[in-house]
């Protein structure tokens, strides 16, 4: 079942090579429709609650769109470039503690943005490590580079590039051994190896990851406000928040939300249409093929800089929080919040798994391009719809169903967390699943495999490790989520990030720091452990 040697282009008559899977396609279409209907219901519920069209929102939308697009565009380009370089380096180099480092890199994106931003300031801020060292050694200050557009970009790259690297690394690690052997026997240079072997494996994931990063940056609320230096650098989300909360101009909020959804949809549409069908895929052994010394030095340099740039801020979070951990561990609420976090995280990880598999399998099962594009879109729903609008809409919907919001909160949080993790899950699982049906479709057709047996015998063993990465992502997303829980959390439903946020809002910065450190440790452990665990399970199932 080798993947090498097949055409890199989308084959003509591809339909014939795909196994016939009407159920998979139907399930994905049903799910896509359900998500679309949910979003429409949310907007409708808000419009229905808007008493009068006061229309007081005074927002310079073109200006906001221009500023936000520039910021998000730069973030995307920088993050993809850095992420690719980092994945390339990590794929080649082997050293003790590599798994832990990979886990640490990946943990950035799922850590609450606030924590990462303050970690960055602890390094780069006016009173940060670098300035303190520079002042002590040379008596000069580097000033305050962490604020303004550069600060926003820096924080976003730290968050997003490491995440991109994690997913791209999974793609590189999945290049089949025989392909590598062929390349090695042809004595490809480091550059040729990247262009001929690595890039084809990566490019299937680039549009999806790029879209996620763009949307994250486009809607990034607290970081942009914290590091932006003022209202000149801000996003539509701020205006929407103001419309919902301060002006209580609900129809205006829906208008702004629709604008944001429209812009995001264009990005999603492009990404979804552009994503090429990935090719080779398989299980890979550890590489015995070393690049030239110059290339290896470059890889080590990339890794060293990335480690300093990305890990130091997180390290500062750990160090800062360490002093108060004992005090926090002694609080019964902390343990309740931990249990809640673990339960919500596990539930939403499992739900994400089901949703992502349904969407990705359905998409992989059809060769119809418009349908493929449409099935690629709903995954991004949560990133395109402003959180404050979603929460308001859910609140109204739950009420109109006759349920008490507090009692529905756990379910809303789990569903919302799953939707939040969905694009990341699809970016992880989509490309390998498609590669499998494309590469082995003919074989499965000729063997007459049923859909279940295709999953059990072919797909599951091959994507085991990716399932682990995906579950870790979804679990940690939920574990670190602050946006959803801040709006849906109640007295009885308090997760660790919410507890952290509440502590910070009541002068209890030491407690908040300790919780941030604990969250970070949990995330790194999940990222280091889960992919390995699932890789093992998949190997056992083979």
């Amino acid at each position, binding site marked *: 079942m080798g993947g090498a040697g097949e055409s890199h282009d989308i084959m003509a008559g591809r339909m014939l090579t795909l196994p016939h899977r009407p159920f998979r396609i139907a399930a994905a279409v049903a799910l896509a429709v359900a998500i679309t209907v949910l979003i429409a219901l949310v907007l409708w519920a808000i419009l229905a609650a808007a008493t009068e069209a006061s229309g007081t929102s005074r927002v310079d939308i073109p200006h906001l769109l221009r500023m936000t697009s520039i910021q998000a565009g730069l973030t995307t380009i920088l993050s993809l470039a850095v992420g690719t370089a980092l994945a390339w380096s990590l794929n080649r180099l082997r050293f003790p503690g590599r798994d832990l480092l990979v886990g640490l890199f990946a943990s950035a994106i799922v850590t609450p943005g606030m924590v990462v931003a303050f970690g960055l300031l602890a390094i780069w801020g006016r009173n940060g490590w670098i300035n303190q060292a520079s002042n002590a050694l040379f008596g000069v200050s580097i000033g305050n580079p962490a604020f303004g557009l550069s600060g926003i970009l820096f924080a976003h790259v730290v968050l997003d590039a490491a995440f991109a690297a994690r997913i791209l690394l999974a793609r590189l690690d999945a290049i089949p051994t025989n392909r590598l052997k062929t390349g090695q026997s042809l004595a490809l240079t480091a550059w040729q190896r990247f262009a001929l072997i690595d890039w084809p494996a990566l490019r299937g994931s680039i549009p999806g990851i790029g879209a996620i990063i763009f949307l994250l940056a486009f809607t990034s609320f607290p970081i942009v406000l*914290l590091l932006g*230096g003022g209202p000149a650098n801000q996003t539509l989300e701020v205006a929407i928040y103001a419309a919902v909360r301060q002006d209580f101009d609900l129809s205006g909020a829906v208008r702004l939300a629709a604008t944001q959804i429209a812009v995001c949809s264009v990005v999603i549409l492009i990404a979804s249409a552009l994503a090429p069908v990935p090719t080779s895929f398989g299980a890979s052994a550890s590489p015995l093929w070393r690049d030239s010394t110059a290339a290896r030095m470059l890889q080590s340099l990339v890794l060293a800089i990335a480690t300093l740039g990305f890990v130091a801020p997180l390290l500062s979070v750990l160090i800062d929080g360490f002093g108060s951990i004992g005090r926090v561990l002694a609080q019964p609420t902390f343990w309740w919040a931990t249990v809640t976090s673990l339960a919500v995280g596990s539930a939403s990880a499992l739900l994400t798994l089901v949703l992502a598999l349904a969407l990705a399998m359905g998409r992989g099962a059809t060769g119809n391009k418009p349908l493929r594009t449409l099935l690629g879109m709903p995954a991004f729903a949560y990133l395109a719809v402003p959180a404050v609008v979603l929460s308001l809409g859910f609140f109204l919907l739950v009420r109109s169903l006759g349920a008490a919001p507090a009692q529905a909160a756990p*379910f809303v949080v789990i569903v919302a967390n799953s939707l939040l993790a969905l694009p990341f899950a699809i970016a992880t699982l989509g490309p390998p699943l498609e590669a499998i049906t494309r590469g082995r479709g003919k074989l499965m057709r000729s063997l007459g495999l049923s859909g279940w047996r295709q999953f059990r015998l072919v797909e599951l063993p091959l994507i085991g490790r990716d399932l682990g990465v995906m579950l870790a992502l979804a679990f940690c997303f939920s574990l670190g989520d602050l946006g959803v829980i801040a709006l849906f959390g109640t007295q009885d439903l308090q997760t660790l990030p919410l507890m952290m946020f509440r502590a910070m809002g009541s002068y209890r910065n030491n407690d908040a720091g300790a919780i941030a450190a604990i969250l970070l440790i949990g995330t790194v452990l999940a990222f280091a452990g889960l992919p390995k665990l699932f890789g093992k399970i998949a190997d056992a199932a083979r």
Partner: protein
Amino acid sequence: MVKSGSIALAVLLGLFAAPTVAQDAPKLTIYTYDGFAAEWGPGPGLKAGFEAICGGCTVDFIAADSSIGTLRRVQLEGETTEADLIVGLDTAIAGEARATGLFAEHGLDLTGLTLPTEWTDATFVPVDYAHFAFVYDTDTVTTPPKSFEELIALPEDFKIVVQDPRSATPGLGLVLWIAAAYGDRAPEIWAGLKPHILTVTRDWSESYNLFLEGEADMALSYTTSPAYHIVSEDDQTIHAALFEEGHLAQTEVAGMLKSSDQPELARQFLDYLASAEGQKIIPTTNWMFPVTDLGADLDPAFAGLPQPEKTLTVSDEEIAANSQRWIDEMLTAVQ
């Protein structure tokens, strides 16, 4: 998560469709913001204190993410809201809350209260107050500015952090404060402040954290903020800078809803809230001044805090008529 499990079951069975559970003890449902209901906030103490004197009632705090969120919630719920009371709105939003017509008059005699200005509101009962102020650390700032104009005249590397008036109540408070102090000159003051503003954050906590981390010299907060550091951390270095123009006070208020099915109990709670018994709980849990004279019961850390000589006020009518424009002027000036 047995609890969630049983909730799941209950929701599935539609048991919550009609919440007609018979209640022996009368239940008082209070909407408030996160920090007020938190275990370290005033909520638990007030609940225990009132339940002990109300003769067998239950108090249930339901927390929203912000004080304005509680108001928006009852506006959306209208007559069907389960809330009997809202605690934690502030004076900047009280006028708008009153205008919704959802609140009932409290009917209490509040003449004995000790607030910076006399309390005449027939709808809302004051819960606590503090003046907005910039806080600084005596380790790094030896001579704090004594007015907005002195602050503006400082070198540009003297940085302050403030909050977005559209998302944080202190942020809105600063806009009102500057408008009250400078009237038509407010845009000029904002333009002068601009070079000193390191950033404008969404929430108070982010600004305050930036200040504590040493990223900014001063943060917009309250005159009572130093009390937290004195009481909880034995740290005497955090002080509030008093400005000669005078300070605007933020008074947090509580109000009972017309739709309440327990109006007498709700009124009783408001009375308790403004009494010395209720007020005793507030200072070291919500870090604000009490609205009654607590005498020796007030923590000395509060009693020793310097108070502004002059308290500025902005009327409900002025806020309703001008706050949009003032916010726009601020945003334009600091853009």
